[in-house]
């Protein structure tokens, strides 16, 4: 063991925090190193002197609590952030519960389908015949006119077929 290592262990020794093995090795070093032995003696003296500085059973000046109350009344006005922080802790879980209920309501409650009668479906789908006919005759190109007539005919057949179903 060298003196540098020993110095660190001596500090632990004066605090009673040295393991047995390290303590034995340190004792062997102290037996042959007067400098480290002196260091141990100085640290022990210092520890005693420091402990002597302690003001035991120290009590504050009289009426400490009463003086503090007076200061709390005048100096300790809670800041807006302290109020916010106080309510935030309670508000967050309440908000989460409300949010979960709303989500549940939105997802679990299915809107009922509106059942239409067959006649209502036909009326809903069918456009004004006059508007359709005008669009066909307004078409300039004959081939486009014929295609529109064909599709109009097919659509009419489809509407009738759905009405029958």
């Amino acid at each position, binding site marked *: 063991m060298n003196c540098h290592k020993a*110095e*660190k262990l001596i*500090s*632990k020794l004066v*605090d009673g*925090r040295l393991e047995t093995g390290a303590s034995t090795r340190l004792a062997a070093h102290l037996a042959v190193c007067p400098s480290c032995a*002196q*260091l141990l003696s*100085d*640290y022990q*003296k*210092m*520890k005693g*002197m*420091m*402990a*002597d*500085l*302690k*003001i035991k*059973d*120290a*009590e*504050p*000046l009289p009426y*400490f*609590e009463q*003086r*503090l*109350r007076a*200061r*709390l009344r005048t*100096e*300790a006005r*809670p*800041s807006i952030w*302290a109020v916010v*922080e*106080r309510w935030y802790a309670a508000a967050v879980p309440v908000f989460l519960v409300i949010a979960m209920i709303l989500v549940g309501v939105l997802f679990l409650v299915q809107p009922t389908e509106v059942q239409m009668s067959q006649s209502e479906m036909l009326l809903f789908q069918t456009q004004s015949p006059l508007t359709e006919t005008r669009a066909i005759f307004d078409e300039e190109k004959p081939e486009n006119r014929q295609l529109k007539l064909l599709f109009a005919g097919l659509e009419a057949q489809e509407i009738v077929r759905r009405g029958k179903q």
Partner: protein
Amino acid sequence: MDENRVVKQAQQGDKESFSILVKTYQSKVFGLAVNIVHDRETADDLAQEIFLKAYLSLPGFRFQSEFGTWLYQIAINHIRDYLRKHKKEKESLSLDEIPEPGTGENEMDLRIAETQEHERYKILLRQKLEEMPEKYRLILSLRDIQGLSYEEIGKVLKLSPGTVDSRLHRARRLLRKKLAPLLGQGGG
């Protein structure tokens, strides 16, 4: 006393509950302050300010540690701020500058002389402590004056056990150099 219940009531604004906490901890907080700053009036002011800070910070206390540990952390931080603001450039005293006690002839005089000599050493030791960097002064005060364990020091200063160890070692080495005349050797 269920301390957690009292703390919760104080958090809800119950001033009587906060008074209970003050009465429970005022001696410890004052004792911590006075053993670091070595002045009763200053320590009393510091203790008042520490409890004021604790009152304002109470809504943020989440019971992740004991209330006493949390209060001690506030106290240490406040005292540390005070030491930084009031670090004076004091002339370094030597043992020779402190008046020696008179030499008495009878036993009573000798006892008085011993007590006065003892006081001289204490004055010099306080002086040397005050010259030290505040992190070393704090850790030495907590360990060797207040008698806190390494674990308690680690919690209060938020240091790992290894850091407490190494910081104490460096603090003692530095103090030993400063106290060389008192210890009666080179101190190197």
